[in-house]
């Protein structure tokens, strides 16, 4: 029983981070209708940003979040403005292919610049734990969890209650109408992709604190983010949180009761099942 509780706690903590990982993907997908296969690569860049800020500049990884988010925002903005804006109104298949191409390029450049070695970010408090009703909770994971949910909340508030946020949502729903209201779609699109990238960057920085990183983690993280997004449902941030928590707990339970090598089978098996049975996701509106 004690073990089960510990596993659930682990799952929830992982789930919060998962939610943040998928959030950027869902934002870009929902607003720009871009299925971003480079998403994991952006997470990877965020992880490296956190790593270098820590090892080269001595900045605590959590404190470095705003910086890595800014860096990723700029990268994302540039990608959308310079490349993706040229194909965005074409068939969706094209954006799929082009983001794959970007993933390949980014991964390759990362490997050249950062080398293929595994890295970890080890702040001095890395080993600290505290007790929660009998379960051991690593301090860094708890902090990552809180920040992940916090950013999700901030994003939701931003989209609902700020002028820019509403502009983004309006453009998503009706490009023509938004244009008539003076919205510059090129900039809104770039802003949105930048925002999604910033969120990916945040997830990456936090990921770097709790797990090892190397240039090739992008692919698996993209796949995982897709699973979370689809399982939760693409409609809003809350769905993503539910999807993330659900998958985090499921994976933790799978690792315990079936075996750690089966987590992918279960996670992606559920993804396929959801797509076939209820494509709008666990919480999504029925089509």
């Amino acid at each position, binding site marked *: 029983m004690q073990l089960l509780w510990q596993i659930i706690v682990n799952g929830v903590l992982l789930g919060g981070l998962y939610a943040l990982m998928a959030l950027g993907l869902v934002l870009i997908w929902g607003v720009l209708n871009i299925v971003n296969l480079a998403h994991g690569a952006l997470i990877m860049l965020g992880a490296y940003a956190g790593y270098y800020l820590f090892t080269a500049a001595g900045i605590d990884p959590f404190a470095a979040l705003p910086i890595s988010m800014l860096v990723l925002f700029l990268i994302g903005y540039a990608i959308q403005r310079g490349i993706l804006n040229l194909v965005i109104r074409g068939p969706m*298949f094209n954006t799929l292919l082009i983001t794959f191409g970007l*993933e390949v390029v980014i991964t390759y450049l990362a490997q050249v610049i950062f080398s293929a070695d595994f890295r970890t970010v080890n702040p001095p408090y890395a080993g600290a734990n505290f007790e929660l009703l009998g379960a051991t909770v690593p301090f860094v994971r708890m902090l990552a969890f809180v920040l992940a949910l916090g950013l999700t909340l901030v994003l939701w508030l931003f989209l609902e209650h700020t002028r820019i946020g509403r502009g983004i949502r309006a453009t998503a729903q009706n490009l023509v109408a938004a244009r008539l209201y003076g919205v510059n*779609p090129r900039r809104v699109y770039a802003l949105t992709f930048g925002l999604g990238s910033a969120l990916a960057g945040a997830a990456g920085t936090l990921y770097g604190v709790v797990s090892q990183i190397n240039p090739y983690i992008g692919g698996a993280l993209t796949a995982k983010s897709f699973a979370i997004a689809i399982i939760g449902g693409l409609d809003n941030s809350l769905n993503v949180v539910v999807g993330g928590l659900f998958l985090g707990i499921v994976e933790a339970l799978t690792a315990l009761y079936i075996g750690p090598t089966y987590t992918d089978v279960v996670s992606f098996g559920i993804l396929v099942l959801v797509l076939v049975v209820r494509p709008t996701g666990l919480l999504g509106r029925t089509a």
Partner: protein
Amino acid sequence: MRLGYQLAIAAVAVAALATLPSWGSAVIVQFGTSALILAVLAQSWNIIGGYTGYASFGNSVFYGLGGYGVAIGMVQLHWPFAAGLALGIALALAFAFLIGLPVLRLRGHYFAIATLGLAVVMTAIVSNLEIAGRNIGLIMPLVKGDTWFYEGSLALLAATTLAVAWISRSRFGFGLIAIRENEGAAAVMGVNTTLNKVLAFALCSVFTAIAGGIHAYWITFLDPESAFDIGLNVRMIIMAVFGGPGTVFGPVLGAFVLSAISEVLASKVTSLASIFFGVVIVIAVIFMPRGFADLVRRFRQSGWRYFQENIRAHGV
């Protein structure tokens, strides 16, 4: 140019290519084998993706099942290669029918994601199976002589292309094309869309599985990562799409050209091959999203403005 003439020219090309091992270096024969196998993958994908319009991101499953059929058959069961290949084909067909049926009900990017998810699931399942050697994989008996694999791959490509040629002028093929162009209209016009889709998927599974089997035996080593190589999915799609999906020879040409350029660049600067694909995809999607075939056709009319027109049509 009528299909008959195209096939005649292709037959001459095949005959010419078949002589390669007698005058080419070992490196060229090896490159040729890789390119031929990739061409088979692109051409098979063409059946479900190009003609039927269902962009599968999971054909790597068939490739892997073909490879593991051969590996398990030869290593664990001590069968000859042909029997192992038959096992691989059987596994792939079973997958195509059983899993294809529910998944082919999905449209557009949902189908793409589902097939991608399946690719990941299968990789994970196989890496847990004892008989498949788990993560470590299996090692097959070595067969000397790259020539056999080269000629085998060439024959497979010819067979696959003939199948696609038949599809392009058959009632079955028209059913597939109708599904691609407007599935709802096809259904009310009498096309049994479910049956046709599953058959297309099954057909492509056979050729892809055989390619996987030949490749596994050639490399003599198989593990889940390499057998179910998920990156292969996108590569075969890119080759088919830029060669010209829904055409008989487009994917083959796309595979050959992209493989050749990749190889040339790889010999100049070894690590460049990996980034080559990425850059080419990005540039191609921006400037020639409709593939080589369309480029050739429209370039005669519009010249350099063709590229600009594409951006204007698809960009914001």
